[in-house]
Structure formats: structure tokens, C-alpha cells
């Protein structure tokens, strides 16, 4: 058991990025089991690499994770056919039942609509809104130009907005 005095430099990073990376890897690799292997490998690489500058950390982790996931996917020659059944059941983080229901509906709806987007748009949307990464970081991870990232996000959002069935709460 790790005591505070022997806290490894990597533990806070594990705490912060473990779940988002697994979530992201799952979106590429298809299953959580594979995603866990991918993320473990990502952290092993980080452990071997040593501490990184904070501003480089997230792009590095997501880049390695992405590459691993894509490698694995290609290696297994497996196209993960996502469908409504395979999309993770949205869960709630809202306190009230009504809010929970709304969040569930939105996440459910989003899951369905995302499937109608091209994979590259899905990925940048996920990196932006799920992983809270900037255009520059997404560009670094996906090896796409920042302009291309902006275009993909713009197009993806526009399409989703057209398809989105629920009213939006717009506040200037």
C-alpha cells in the first residue's frame, strides 16, 4: 500500500486521467476490457518516460492512448460496430430524479445521434466536450491541423444541432 510519504509522482496523474482515458479508449477500441489494457499500457509508457511538463501531459497521454487503441483495433482487424445497444447506458450525476431523467435522455439521444456522424467528427467532439481539450491539444493528438479540427467540430456541432430534438436553454 502506498503511503503519502511514498506517493509516486504518477499517482495523481492516474487519479486524474485514468477514467477519462478509459472512456476515450473505449470509444475507439469498443470494450472496456481492451480500453483498460490500452490505458495501462499508456501509463506504463508514461512511467518509463518519466514526468512530463503539465501542459504536455494531457496531449501526450491522449496521443499515446489513441495510438495504442488504433493499433490494437487494426491489429485485431476488428471494426467495432457501435450501435444503440452497444452504446453505454447513460448514467446520472444529477441529484434530482427529474434532472437525472433529463440527463439520461440527453446522453441517450446524444449517443444515438453521434452514430450518424463520421468517425473523425465523433472523435473531435469527444475530445472537446468529454475530455475538455483545446483545439490545439486535439490537433496534437489527432495529428490534424487546428483549422481542420475547428472545421470538424463546427460541422459536427451543426449537424447535431439540426438533429437535436430537445429545446436548448440559450443564454447569452
Amino acid at each position, binding site marked *: 500500500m*502506498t503511503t503519502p510519504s511514498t506517493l*509516486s*509522482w*504518477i499517482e495523481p496523474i*492516474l487519479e486524474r486521467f*485514468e*477514467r477519462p482515458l*478509459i*472512456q476515450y479508449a473505449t470509444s475507439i477500441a469498443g470494450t*472496456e476490457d481492451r*480500453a*483498460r*489494457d490500452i490505458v*495501462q*499500457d499508456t*501509463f*506504463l*509508457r*508514461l*512511467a*518509463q518516460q518519466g514526468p512530463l511538463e503539465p501542459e504536455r501531459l494531457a496531449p501526450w497521454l491522449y*496521443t*499515446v492512448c*489513441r*495510438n495504442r487503441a488504433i*493499433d490494437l483495433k487494426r*491489429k485485431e482487424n476488428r471494426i467495432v460496430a457501435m450501435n444503440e445497444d452497444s452504446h*453505454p*447506458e*447513460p*448514467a*446520472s*450525476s*444529477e441529484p434530482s430524479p427529474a434532472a437525472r431523467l433529463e*440527463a*439520461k435522455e*440527453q*446522453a441517450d*439521444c*446524444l*449517443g444515438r445521434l453521434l452514430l450518424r456522424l463520421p468517425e473523425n467528427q465523433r472523435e473531435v*467532439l*469527444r475530445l*472537446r*466536450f*468529454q475530455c475538455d481539450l483545446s*483545439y490545439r491539444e486535439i490537433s496534437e493528438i*489527432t*495529428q490534424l491541423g487546428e483549422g481542420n479540427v*475547428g472545421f470538424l*467540430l463546427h460541422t459536427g*456541432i*451543426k449537424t*447535431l*444541432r439540426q438533429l*437535436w430534438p430537445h429545446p*436548448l*436553454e*440559450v443564454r*447569452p
Partner: protein
Amino acid sequence: MNSDDPKLTAYALGELSGPERDAVEQRLRDDPNLRAEVDETAAFGRMLTGAFHAEPAPATLAPAQRAEVLEEARHGRKTIPFPHRPWVVWTLRIAAALVALAALGRFVHVPAARPPHVATVSQMEGADPEDRFVAKGEALPADSLLAKNSGETRPNADVVGGSVAAPAKEPLGLDQSAASSDFLSLTNSQTTPALAFRNTNNASPLDLTAQKPRAEGADAAGAADRPAERLEAPAATAGARYSLETKVQSQIGFAGQNFGNGTPIDARAAAALAEAPARSAAPAAPSAPAAASQPLLAGQVSLKNKQAAGLSRGGGAITANGDGAALFGAVLLQGPSFSGKELAEAVNHYVALGEEGAIRELTELTAKAPGDRRLRERVGLVCRVLYTPRDAQALRPPRFGGERVLRDGNTYTGTKTVQPAKELKADKDGKSAAEREVSKDAEAPEESVADYLAFCRAHGVFRSLPVPLPKASPEGTPR
């Protein structure tokens, strides 16, 4: 600026700053419709954030996985098991033991154990018989490495011997066909192939058994006339009798991984070594690390490339870590031609540099020429020879710009070899095989050279010993 401008989305998501942001804000002040558009986009972005975050929290790593990561961070291992396959470890241990065994018996006569079509090494074209080295189990005297009358030091890659191939297996080789001078491929048609450089256009059969090793006396006499060149064959060269060998059955996968490490590693080879104790009294070959740390010999460098690199011929060794070495690497990879010989030279150059040095130099070299697609392709080729896979699957090709440098089939999988003439021949749809391959991979994610090197490092093992040099056809094999 209209409502379909990606800049509006970027602004709504807080991605703009400075003059760009000011310009958009000015525009929004003048156009309420655009303002409404931006507000809606921002609201939708917030909703998306909420919806994404409302997805169920994923599981964390298993305790064992987490413990392994922490252990790695504390102590730092050299290798990363991915995925964990105990058999890989055992296979590598066995391979290491056999490598050590073979290193002891490097000068041991190995009886010919290959079928005639396997493990032949030749550079017959345009060479007189004395230039041909016999690969069929004949130990070559160190003197035979010395230069001939041409004045150019014989590449020590000519010296390939002690070949032991798995019976009835097909060779894996760097093929250099003079029939199609731009032909270069790595082929492997069986699961446990032998490895060979072949010249497929040689009119005469590569019956190397008919060729005698160069007479020591003759070589000595010739060398005596060229004292400076004799100096170019230090002890390291004496041990540079490479064996072509098999892989450890199908466990390690890519047969080429052991290419040139001087180690017949199958049981038959080990037995052959054990049967020839007398010859093991020959001077010991350098160990793998020692060989890797040896400077590149001038004889390993083709005259053309030495001249291109501004390195003097006959001037002795090119030190691996000197400026000349870095220049040499750049010239090789950016030169006008890149045949199997240049590829092998480049590989040997980076083997001599060591893994860290090679990665550093390759990264720096490609960073200086980001738009040089040809350079990236060559680096990709070099990487695929420099690194041998850790597990049963060969290293994938690089994905530079969505295009593959080599098709998968070139290196390890099937029986097919790629001949550019065939590859480039348009089919009835007007597309060549190469174009179809590229279009098939058009959606493959691009990666940088650094990424591909990282991939190779994670999934491969850096070669420790140089590879033999094939002799280029007279007109070269430009790629």
C-alpha cells in the same frame, strides 16, 4: 463572415483570442443574427459537455494493472509487456541463450543444412568469382574481407556464412532484382524462413558451394599491396561473419528479426555448432554489444555514399558518434538512390549509433525536412529493419500521410513480393495496385516519424548487430 463560419464556432467555444476574437466580436455587435447563432452554439456546447459527462463513469484500472504502473514508475523497466504474454519472455530467453551459444562458436564450421534455394548470399553481378562469398557453412578468413584491386574496401557484408536454415522453409530476404532495378522488398513466405539477400536476376545459379573462399595467401598478398586498407579490417571485421538464421519457430514471428545477428538459433544449428569444437578455437567474435559499439568500417559504406557524404575512402573507420556519422546518415536517407544496399548501410549506421542515438538522429533529420515524403518513406523502411517485433506479429508499416511505405505483405505475411512494375501497372479501373493500397489506407490516421519510432520502440526490439550488405546492381536501384 456568415453563420456557417467555423470561426463563429471557435469563438462560441472560447477558442479565439487576440485580433481574431476582436474581429468576431465586432462582427457580432453589428449582426444580431450572428450573435444569436453564437449563443445557440455555445448553449449546445454546454449541453454536449453535460451529455458526455453524463455517460457512466468508466471503471478504473484493475488493481494489478495499477500496481504494475506504480512499480514501473518507481523502478522503471526497460520493456513494456503489451499484452502480457509469458511465452514471449521464455522465447526471448531461449533465443538469448542460443545467441550466447552461437557467439561462442562463431567460427565453428557449420555443416550445410539448408536446402539449395535457401540462404544464399551473393552479389554475383559484375563480380569475378573471387568476389563471391560462400554462405554455405564456410568460415571465411579474416583476410578475405580485405579489399580487392578495385581499391574499394570490400563491404564486410559480403561475408555471410555459417548459414543454417530451417529445412524446407522459404527464405526471407532483401531482394534486389536487377530485372526491375527499383525492386526492393522483404519477403517471407513461410512461418519459419531462413533469411537471405538474393539477387534474383542473376543468370547463374547461386550455387555457392562451387565457390571457394578466397585463399588466405592470395588475400594476404593482395592486402600486403594495400597496407592502408588492411588497417581497415580490425578485429571486429574478423568476426563479421554473419549467419543467416531462422527465427525461433513461429513464436517470435518476424523471421527477419534475427537477421544478421550471427546466430543460428534453431536446434539444428546448435547441434552443428556443438559438433565442431575444433573450429571454435578461432578468434572469438565480438559480443553483440561490442559489435554494436564498433565504429562503422569504411568497408561497410559504399563508395558512392562515402563520396556523397564527403568521407574519405580508405581513411579508416567512420566513427559512429562523430559528425561524419550524422552526415552519413543524412546522405544515405536523402541521397538520390535508395537500394537495398543503401538501406542496409543505413540500418548498420543506426545499429552502430545505438537505439537512443538512432532515434535522436532520425527524429532530428526528419524534423529538418517535414515536407520530405521520400525521406519519411526511407526512414520507415529503416525502422522496419532496425526493429524486430516483440511478438508474433510483424511491426506494422508507418502511416505517414495516410500512405504506406510498404504493404504489409512485403515484409512478413505471405508469399507475395511486390514488384514495382506490377504494382504500378494500372488495372482496368485505371488504378495501380499502389494507388488502390493508398486509397484503402486513406483514412488511416497519420502519424509523425517520432510517433512511428515510439511505436517501433514499444513493439519491437532494436537490432544489435548489423545486417549484411547486398551489392547493388550496376545501375543502382533507385527508389
